[in-house]
């Protein structure tokens, strides 16, 4: 009898534990099975009052104000639709979004990074294809849409373009006696020598974060590899074309003139005055290769936290004998996606974002280049004008390679470039590292 009582107590305990596991397991399995139940094409209601949630990454300043205004204006136009903006800190964004998507609590609209991440969301049936009208297509333009298209379907509404080039201090260039911006790597190397003579770091790079260092390789690859070679790798992930090794050799030989600041391996790119952007902001370095978010970052790091008045921009120099177009441009693009359960009113808000007025406000708030050509007249800063001209002249634009080739290969590529810059590997080692990574993911 005593034994039986004990057994019962134990059974109770076991049952309680079992229940806990079961709860946890079903909680998880629920998310899993719902995910596999494929993408509905906007289960949305119509007519009644609808609330649309939006996740974006501008947490303060004019960027956050832009979103608030856009939401209010859209509500005035469509009183039955309430747009709920949620700002999420950039570094927290991807993790939070991933959890939300997997647990079926995703926002209706969210900032899309594109590339491999967007591909993974499409594969998991977590986002909707967009049926763009002719007006939408005219507003966004074919080049930008191409970057958000997978297998003929558009999965993100592009909002801005982030062409990459070299930001430089006009004052320091003048002081070093440099009269025109360099157009070839040889010119750039000559300018590096001149800048060293006036005792500033010629070029700042935040190699601690890896990607800023890797962008040097991306741009050499953009010059060395033809467009078709670069886009073919998206599917094959095989870096067999000799141009990939050539780009690595180019970077290695460029390193021989020591163009970067002392201790660049442990310099971060955006945090504080000691970062690469901070060095440019404080005239400790003359140049930095970066996408067009850089002026905003630099502005926050100048002594008075105002935009750097002498900031200029020039496109990445050409490389003799390269297979890529000499005016091709590297760059990312911002955009927004609809999660699978988003109501159709959410798409209306996306369309609203690319209209002329909204694009002008957006470009002003984020100090960026709008995707809508009619809105591009608001671009007045000298560096943005230069970047826009180069962008409009470019025969094609290539997405940053760590996005383009997916996180896995991109991450390995970035790490390998850091090793190359530290002298720990060579061009062949970079190509091998990227191929090895493909096996892990």
């Amino acid at each position, binding site marked *: 009898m005593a034994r039986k009582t004990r057994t019962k107590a134990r059974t*109770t305990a076991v049952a309680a534990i079992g229940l806990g596991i079961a709860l946890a397991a079903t909680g998880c399995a629920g998310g*899993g099975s719902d995910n596999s139940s494929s993408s509905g094409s906007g289960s949305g209601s119509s007519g009644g009052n609808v609330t649309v949630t939006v996740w974006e990454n501008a947490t303060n300043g004019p960027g956050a104000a832009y979103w608030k205004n856009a939401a209010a204006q859209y509500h005035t136009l469509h009183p039955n639709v309430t747009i709920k903006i949620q700002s999420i800190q950039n570094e927290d964004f991807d993790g939070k979004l991933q959890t939300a998507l997997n647990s079926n609590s995703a926002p209706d609209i969210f900032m899309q990074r594109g590339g491999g991440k967007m591909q993974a969301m499409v594969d998991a049936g977590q986002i909707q294809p967009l049926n763009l009208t002719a007006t939408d297509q005219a507003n966004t333009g074919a080049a930008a849409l191409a970057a958000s298209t997978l297998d003929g379907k558009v999965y993100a509404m592009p909002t801005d373009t982030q062409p990459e080039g070299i930001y430089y201090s006009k004052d320091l260039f003048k002081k070093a006696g440099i009269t025109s911006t360099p157009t070839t790597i040889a010119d750039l190397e000559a300018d590096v020598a001149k800048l060293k003579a006036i005792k500033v770091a010629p070029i700042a790079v935040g190699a*601690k974060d890896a990607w800023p260092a890797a962008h040097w390789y991306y741009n050499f690859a953009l010059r060395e590899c033809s467009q078709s070679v670069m886009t073919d790798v998206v599917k094959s992930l095989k870096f067999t074309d000799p141009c990939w090794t050539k780009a690595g050799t180019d970077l290695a030989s460029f390193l021989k003139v020591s163009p970067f600041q002392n201790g660049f391996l*442990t310099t*971060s790119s955006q945090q504080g005055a000691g970062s690469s952007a901070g060095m440019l902001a404080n005239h400790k370095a003359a140049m930095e290769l970066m996408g067009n978010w850089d002026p905003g970052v630099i502005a926050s790091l100048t002594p008075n936290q105002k935009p750097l008045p002498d900031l200029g921009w020039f496109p990445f120099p050409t490389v003799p004998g390269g297979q890529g177009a000499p005016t091709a441009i590297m760059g990312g693009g911002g955009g927004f996606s609809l999660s699978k359960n988003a109501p159709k009113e959410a798409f209306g808000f996306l369309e609203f974002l690319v209209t002329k007025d909204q694009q002008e406000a957006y470009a002003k708030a984020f100090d960026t280049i709008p995707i809508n050509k009619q809105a591009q007249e608001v671009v007045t800063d000298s560096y943005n004008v230069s970047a826009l001209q180069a962008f409009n002249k470019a025969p094609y634009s290539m997405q940053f390679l760590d996005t383009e080739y997916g996180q896995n290969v991109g991450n390995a590529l970035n790490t390998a470039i*850091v090793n190359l810059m530290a002298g720990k590997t060579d061009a062949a080692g970079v190509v091998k590292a990227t191929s090895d990574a493909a096996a892990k*993911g």
Partner: protein
Amino acid sequence: MSDTLGTDAAESRRSQGTPGVGDVVESASPAPSRAGVRRRGRARARIEITVMSAPAILMFLAFVIFPVALAAYYGFYRWHGYGAATDWVGLNNYKLIFTDPAFHSVLWHNGVVLVLSLVLQGPVAIVLALLLNRKMRGRALIRVLIFVPYVISEVIVGTGWGLMLQANGAINDLLGHIGLSSLQADWLANPHLAIWTLMVIISWKYIGFAVILMLAGLQSIPEELFEAAQIDGASYWQIQRRITLPLLGPTIRIWAFLSIIGSLQLFDLVYIIWGPYVAGTAGTSTMAIYMIGQGRNAGNFGYGSAIAVVMFLISLVVALIYQRFVLRRDLKGAVTEGGVV
């Protein structure tokens, strides 16, 4: 667990009329005469134990055991973290880990940190503790100063040292100003120096903890032993060697255990100072850094989970071996060994 293991012993004791482990309620009330009352009392005790421990057990299962099980599950998949895992790859992730030269080098770094922590911090901590155990002026202040680095958060320590040790940071600047510019170096990025830089920072940070442990151990050694030895004419060093060190043994062994586990799991300082990319280049990356780099940063959550499992198993095996062979005599009586009393 202990409930089931202790059962037989409790049962036998109970039959002899002495109160057992599980009979807290019973023994509180004076000698219940009838068996029925006893049984009801015991059942109540069981329910109480269940109710009281259930929340803790549930938390432990939900936030420790369940995630470990999930990591083991995802370790068998190639999974990018979006949607459900479907691409079963068997043991392929583990094969890749063990053949990856990057993993070999992080293992090596963990090993170096483990051994050097013991070798560098142990003797210094013991000597400092012996010194601080003597009466002297400013003892309390020195104790506090030695313990302060341990209290400061890893992020602050990492950021501070990281800034000071930059190629154009405060340390090189100072060396330049006092005429030692020949000693200036790239403390963080030079692969020959970086691991030693890390060891200096780790020792600075954690030695306070070791010293406090050793001091506590010293205080628990009975004063009489020292007095007796002094009367017998033993010198200061003889006393330390023959009495203090042997009696400090349990403390040293526990400290070493904590240090070993800490070394195997080292993450935050390296992550803050070097970041997940440059750590590999500079030769300071650890298993945890490798896991973050290959798992989260590369978006290979399946592969990352497999690394987590490997790390867990390595730590577990080391901990079990250490407990079995080194800590056995210290833990005697504290752990239940297979129900044998």
